[in-house]
C-alpha cells in the first residue's frame, strides 16, 4: 500500500518527522518498506532504519509558473516558445511538449496555464538518461535552433512523480504563481506492507486510524454527506440477493448527466503516487474512494442496464454462476465460470464478476451519461477462490479477499458520489438503494487485567487497558475488574472467547508498545530433558567423517526421474519407479521427490570434477517413497551416502600418496566409522546391485541385519556422468538400522598386566577364498587368548602356483593373568593351522 503523506495528513494530525512516523508504524506492524520522496526535503545523514529513495525539489529553483502565451518557434515545427511568468519576471521558455500545441497562437491565455517551472541552474531528473535510474542534470544556458534556452517547464518524469514524459505537468488553476512547488505539492510516499491481520489498513483512512492510535494524533473523519439534488433513486433500480452468506450487503447510488473528462491534477497525482493510472473522472473517483476509505466500487452505465431491462427499472440480482455460464470481462476475455463464482446480474444475464472485475457490456464508456454506482460486501473466501481460479488479481479483489466490513459499503458509495459530483458536474439522485440482509456478528469480548498479565507479562489496570483499546475505536465498558469490548464497525478481525482475547491482547501490546514490555526469563518448571539420540548419532557420524577427510554436502531433495535414472546402466531397461510427484513443479528438472541419494551425490561429484583431484563427500538426508494404502501415504527414509574418487592425498612437496582411491579406501572409511560407533560383528558379503560394479560390491550387515551397500560404481553408470578416469566408489547406509544397532554403553577391557606374544602367520589358500572367511576362522579358533589378528600382506606369485594367494597375518596372543609360554602359543597356533587346512585347504607358508 503506497501512502502519500499529503493525503494521509488530511485524515490525521501528524507532527512527527516522516522517518520517525515510519519507524513507529514499522514497530506497530505496519512495516514501511520504503519512503519515496517526491518533492519534500529528505532527511540528513542520520536516518531511522527505513530505505529511502526519490527526489527533492529545491524550493528556490523549482516553482509554479504561468504560461501566458504559446508562440511558434521561428525555426522548428516541433518546438514552441512560451511566455512564462515565474512570479518574479517573464521568461521565454522553449518546449516540445505536445500538450501545449492546442494553445499555440491563441494569443494571451485566459486563464494562463499553471506549470512546474525549473529556473536556470535548477537540478532535475534527466529524463533522457535511460542507463541510470534517476540520473540528475542541471539546467544550463544554451542555444537551441537559434533561441536562448536556460530553464524549462517540467514533465512528471523530470520531477520524479511518475514515468510520464509525453507532456509537461499542467497544474490546477488554483496553484499560486511563484510559490515553491515543494511547498505546493511536495510529497513523500510510504510503502507499507499490509499483513492479512491489518487488512483494515489497506486505505488511507485505515492507515490514518493506526497513526492516530500509535502517535496520539487526532483523527479527522471525512464527510459522508453527498449533495443529492437529483430525482430520488427509489423505484429506479432494485436489488435481490440470493445468498446473503456470499453477499451480506449491496448498495447502489445514481448520478446523472456526468461529463467524462480528466480529473483535477491533484487527484491524478495522488492516484499515480498510490500506483494507480488515472483514466477519467468517473473511473478515477471509484479508485480514489477505494484508496481513501477502503471500499472497492463499481460503476455501471445506467442507460445500458435500462436498455437491457426493456426500459423498465433494472433489477440487480447477485447469485452463484450457473453451470456453463460465461461472462466477457472488461479486459475482453470470455471467462468460463465455476459454480462458486458469485455474479452481479440483471434479468438478462451476468453483469460482472462480483468484487473482482466488471463485464464489458455494462462498463462505463465514452458515451456514458448516467452512472449507477455499486458498493457491496462479499465473502472473502469466495473472492479468493474466484481470483485464483480466474487468475485475476485486482485492487478491488485484493481488498475483498482480505475482508471489507459491510458498514463501509454505503460510506464508499456516498463518498464516491460526492467526488463524482465535484469532478463530473453530474447530479446525484437522492438516497441510496441498500440491501443489507446479513450484518456481521457483533463480538463482545470479556477481558480482565489478569488475562493481560498471564499472556503479556505486564500488569495494567482495567482503566489503563480500556484507554489503550479506545485509541483504536474499540467500545469499552468496565464492570468492576472486567472489560467488555465491542469491535468498531470497520474491523472483522476480532474473534470471540479466548481467540477474541488474544486478538485484543495483540492490539493492546501494539498500542502499548512492544518495546515497553519488559524482558523476563522462562520461570516455569524445566520440562523433561529427553535429548534426541538420532540427531546425536548423526552428529557423531558427521564429526567422524569430516575428521577423516570427507566433506559434508546438502543437496536438493526435489529432482526429476531423468536425473534419478542416471544411476542405472544405459543398456538396462529403465525400471518403472513410483515417485512422489509434485502437482505444481516450478521447473522441468524439479518434478519429483528423490528416491536415490546416490543420484544426488554423483551429480555433485560431477559438478566438482574440474576443480578437485580428490573428491570425498557425504550427505545425511532423506529419500522419499510413496507408501501402500494402509500406512501414512509417504515414507521418508534417512540415509547416509558417501562417494569417493580421485587421488588419495593432495599434491605435496614430499610423501604424497598419489594413487587413485578404490574400493578399499571406501571400505576403510566405513570400517573406521563403524569402529568409532563401536559396532562389532559387521560383515561384508559380495553382492550385486544395479549401480555397482558386479565384482566390486558388498552388502554390509550387522548380525545379519542389512546396514547398507557399498562398492565401485558400475563403469556403465559412471559413463552417464562426465567424470575422470579414476574409479568412483560409493556407499549408502541406512540411518535407522544404524541407530537401532549402536549401543552407547559398550564395554572396555582392562589393560593386561602381562606382556603379549607377537607372531606372524602366512598361509596359502585358493584365490577365491574370501579373506573375511579366513580371518573369521582364525579368530574363532584362537579364542579369547588371541587378542588381535591383522592382515598385513596379500601376495600372488609364480611360486605359489596358479589360482593361489598368500595371506599374512600378524597375531597377538595375550592372557589376562599370566605370561604365555612358547608351548601354549604353539598349541593355539597348531589348532588354527589345522582348522584352516581342514576347512579351507590352506597350507602354512611361514610363521
Amino acid at each position: 500500500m503506497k501512502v502519500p503523506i499529503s493525503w494521509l495528513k488530511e485524515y490525521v494530525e501528524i507532527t512527527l518527522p516522516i522517518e520517525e512516523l515510519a519507524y513507529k508504524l514499522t514497530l506497530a506492524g505496519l512495516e514501511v518498506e520504503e519512503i519515496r520522496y517526491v518533492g519534500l526535503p529528505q532527511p540528513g545523514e542520520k536516518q531511522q532504519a527505513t530505505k529511502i529513495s526519490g527526489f527533492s525539489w529545491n524550493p528556490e529553483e523549482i516553482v509554479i509558473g504561468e504560461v501566458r502565451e504559446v508562440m511558434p518557434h521561428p525555426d522548428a515545427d516541433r518546438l514552441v516558445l512560451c511566455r512564462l511568468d515565474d512570479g518574479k519576471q517573464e521568461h521565454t521558455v522553449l518546449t516540445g511538449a505536445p500538450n501545449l500545441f492546442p494553445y499555440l497562437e491563441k494569443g494571451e491565455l485566459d486563464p494562463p496555464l499553471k506549470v512546474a517551472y525549473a529556473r536556470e541552474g535548477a537540478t532535475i531528473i534527466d529524463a533522457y538518461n535511460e542507463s541510470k535510474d534517476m540520473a540528475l542534470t542541471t539546467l544550463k544556458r544554451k542555444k537551441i535552433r537559434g533561441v536562448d534556452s536556460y530553464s524549462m517547464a517540467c514533465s512528471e518524469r523530470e520531477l520524479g512523480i511518475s514515468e510520464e514524459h509525453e507532456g509537461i505537468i499542467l497544474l490546477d488553476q488554483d496553484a499560486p504563481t511563484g510559490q515553491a512547488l515543494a511547498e505546493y505539492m511536495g510529497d513523500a510516499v510510504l510503502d507499507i506492507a499490509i499483513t492479512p491481520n491489518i487488512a483494515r489498513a489497506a486505505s488511507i483512512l485505515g492507515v490514518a486510524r493506526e497513526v492516530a492510535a500509535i502517535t496520539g494524533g487526532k483523527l479527522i473523519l471525512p464527510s459522508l454527506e453527498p449533495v443529492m439534488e437529483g430525482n430520488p433513486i427509489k423505484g429506479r433500480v432494485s436489488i435481490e440477493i440470493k445468498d446473503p452468506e456470499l453477499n451480506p450487503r449491496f448498495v447502489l447510488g445514481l448520478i446523472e448527466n456526468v461529463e467524462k473528462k480528466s480529473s483535477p491534477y491533484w487527484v491524478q497525482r495522488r492516484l499515480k503516487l498510490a500506483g494507480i493510472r488515472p483514466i477519467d473522472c468517473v473511473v478515477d473517483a471509484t479508485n480514489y474512494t477505494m484508496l481513501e476509505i477502503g471500499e472497492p466500487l463499481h460503476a455501471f452505465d445506467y442507460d445500458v442496464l435500462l436498455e437491457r431491462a426493456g426500459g423498465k427499472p433494472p433489477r440487480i440480482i447477485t447469485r452463484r454462476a450457473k453451470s456453463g455460464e460465461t461472462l466477457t470481462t472488461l479486459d475482453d476475455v470470455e471467462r468460463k465460470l465455476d459454480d462458486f463464482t458469485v455474479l452481479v446480474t440483471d434479468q438478462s444475464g451476468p453483469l460482472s464478476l462480483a468484487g473482482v472485475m466488471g463485464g464489458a457490456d455494462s462498463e462505463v464508456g465514452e458515451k456514458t451519461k448516467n452512472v449507477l454506482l455499486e458498493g457491496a460486501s462479499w465473502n472473502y473466501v469466495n473472492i479468493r477462490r474466484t481470483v485464483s481460479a480466474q487468475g485475476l488479481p485486482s485492487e478491488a479483489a485484493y481488498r475483498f479477499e482480505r475482508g471489507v466490513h459491510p458498514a463501509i459499503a454505503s460510506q464508499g458509495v456516498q463518498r464516491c458520489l460526492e467526488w463524482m459530483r465535484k469532478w463530473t458536474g453530474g447530479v446525484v439522485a437522492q438516497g441510496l438503494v441498500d440491501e443489507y440482509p446479513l450484518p456481521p456478528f457483533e463480538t463482545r469480548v470479556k477481558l480482565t487485567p489478569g488475562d493481560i498479565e498471564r499472556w503479556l507479562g505486564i500488569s495494567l489496570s482495567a482503566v489503563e487497558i480500556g484507554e489503550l483499546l479506545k485509541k483504536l475505536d474499540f467500545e469499552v465498558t468496565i464492570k468492576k475488574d472486567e472489560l467488555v469490548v465491542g469491535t468498531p464497525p470497520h474491523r472483522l478481525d476480532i474473534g470471540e472467547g479466548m481467540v477474541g482475547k488474544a486478538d485484543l491482547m495483540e492490539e493492546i501490546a501494539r498500542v502499548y508498545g512492544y518495546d515497553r514490555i519488559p524482558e523476563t526469563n522462562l520461570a516455569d518448571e524445566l520440562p523433561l530433558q529427553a535429548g534426541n539420540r538420532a540427531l546425536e548419532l548423526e552428529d557423531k557420524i558427521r564429526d567422524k567423517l569430516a575428521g577423516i577427510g570427507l566433506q559434508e554436502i546438502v543437496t536438493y531433495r526435489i529432482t526429476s526421474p531423468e536425473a534419478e535414472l542416471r544411476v542405472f546402466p544405459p543398456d538396462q531397461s529403465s525400471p518403472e519407479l513410483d515417485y512422489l510427484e509434485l502437482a505444481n513443479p516450478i521447473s522441468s528438472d524439479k518434478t519429483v521427490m528423490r528416491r536415490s541419494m546416490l543420484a544426488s551425490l554423483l551429480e555433485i561429484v560431477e559438478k566438482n570434477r574440474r576443480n578437485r583431484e580428490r573428491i570425498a563427500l557425504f550427505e545425511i538426508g532423506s529419500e522419499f517413497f510413496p507408501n501402500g494404502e494402509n500406512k501414512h501415504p509417504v515414507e521418508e527414509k534417512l540415509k547416509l551416502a558417501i562417494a569417493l574418487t580421485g587421488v588419495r592425498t593432495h599434491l605435496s612437496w614430499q610423501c604424497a600418496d598419489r594413487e587413485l582411491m578404490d574400493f578399499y579406501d571406501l571400505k576403510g572409511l566405513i570400517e573406521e566409522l563403524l569402529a568409532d560407533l563401536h559396532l562389532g560383528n559387521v560383515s561384508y558379503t559380495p553382492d550385486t546391485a544395479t549401480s555397482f560394479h558386479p565384482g566390486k560390491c558388498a552388502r554390509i550387515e550387522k548380525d545379519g541385519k542389512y546396514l547398507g551397500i557399498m562398492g565401485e560404481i558400475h563403469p556403465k553408470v559412471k559413463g552417464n556422468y562426465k567424470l575422470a578416469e579414476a574409479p568412483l566408489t560409493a556407499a549408502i547406509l541406512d540411518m535407522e538400522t544404524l541407530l537401532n544397532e549402536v549401543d552407547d554403553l559398550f564395554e572396555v577391557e582392562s589393560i593386561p598386566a602381562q606382556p603379549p606374544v607377537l607372531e606372524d602367520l602366512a598361509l596359502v589358500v585358493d584365490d577365491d577364498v574370501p579373506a573375511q572367511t579366513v580371518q573369521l576362522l582364525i579368530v574363532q579358533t584362537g579364542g579369547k587368548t588371541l587378542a588381535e589378528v591383522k592382515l598385513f600382506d596379500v601376495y600372488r606369485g609364480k611360486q605359489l602356483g596358479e589360482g593361489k594367494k598368500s595371506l599374512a597375518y600378524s597375531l597377538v596372543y595375550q592372557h589376562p593373568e599370566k605370561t604365555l609360554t612358547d608351548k601354549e602359543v604353539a598349541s593355539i597356533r597348531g589348532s588354527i593351522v589345522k582348522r584352516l587346512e581342514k576347512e579351507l585347504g590352506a597350507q602354512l607358508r611361514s610363521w
Partner: protein
Amino acid sequence: MEERLDLIRIEALSALEPVDDEKSLENWQVKYLGRSSQLMEIFKALGTLSKEEKPIVGRTANQVKVALEAASGEKENLINQRRIDQVLEGEKIDVTLPGRRTISGSIHPTTQTLREIYRVFGDMGFQIYRSREVETDEFNFQLLNFPPHHPARDMQDTFFITSKQDRGDDPLLLRTHTSPGQIHAMLEHTKKYPEDPPPIRIILPGMCYRYEQITSRSEIQFNQVEGLAVGKGITFGDLKGTLSNFARRMFGQEAKTRFRASHFPFTEPSAEMDVGCFLCGGDGCSVCKGAGWLEILGCGMVHPTVLENGGFDPEVYSGFAFGMGPERITMMRHHIEDIRYFWANDLRFLDQF
C-alpha cells in the same frame, strides 16, 4: 714433594686451558693422569717415603688427582656440548616449507549454524524434535489456524503432491515451515499426559519447501528452526527475554534486539525480532541495507486455537513460538551474497568452512 705436586697441578691446569677437542683432551689425560704421568710416578713412589711424610704427600697427591679429574670432566662436557651445537648447525631446515597435513573435510555451513542454535537453546532446556517433510494440508495449515483459502496462505506458496485418491481439502504437500511439528509434538505430549500436561520446550529443525523462483535471495528448499514453549504462565515478556538471550549468545553479548509487531496465523501477538547489525554496529552497511537492523526471526504467543488443536486449554496454558532460517543467519555472519551456494555444493565454497 708437596711443592712438586703443586707445580704439577698448576702446569696441568694451564695445559688444559687451550684444549678444545676430544683428541687433545685424550693426550692431556695421558700426559697428566696416565700411568706414566708425573703424578702417577709420585703415587708409585709413596712407599719410599717416611712414615711421617707418606700420609701428607699421599693426601696432597690425591687432592691434585681429584682436581685434575674434575677439570678434565668439565672440559669433556664442554667439548661434547660444543660438538652437539656443531651438529645442530648442520641440521638447519627450511621452516617455511609447508607441513605434512592429514586430510580432513568439513561440516556443511548450515549444519554448523544449526548446531550453534541447538547448543544455545539446549542450554535453556529446549529439546530437539523432528518430524516429516511431506505433510498434509491439515497439519501444515489448518491446525495452525490457516483455514482453506485464508489470505495468509499467500505468504507461503506451496508445493503440492499428486495423490492417487482424492484428498479433498487435505492434500499432501511439502511442508512450508517446521510448524506442523508443533502440532505433532503437542498432540503426542497431551496424549501421553491427558491430565494436567507438564510444560513443553522444544526446537524443531528441518528442511522446508516453498514454491518460489530460485534467485540469489530465495530458494525452493531451505532449513528452518522453530521453537515452542508451552506451560502455565509463559508470557510475551518471557518470549522477549528468551530470544534476546539467544541473540546475545549467537551474535555477541553486545547484540541489541528489537521486536516489531507482525502477523502469523499461528501466533498472537506476533512479532519479528531484529538484531542490531553486528557488522556495522547499526550505522548501516550493505548487509543490513543501510537499516542498521537485521531481520532474524519471527515469533509470537501461540494462538489459542493452535494451543487447543494441540490439546492444551488456552485459558490455563500459554506459550510462545518462533522460527528462523539458519541459511539466512549463515549468510549474514559470513557475508554470503547468494543463497544458491548452499545446495550447489561447490567444494570451493564448502572448503572455506
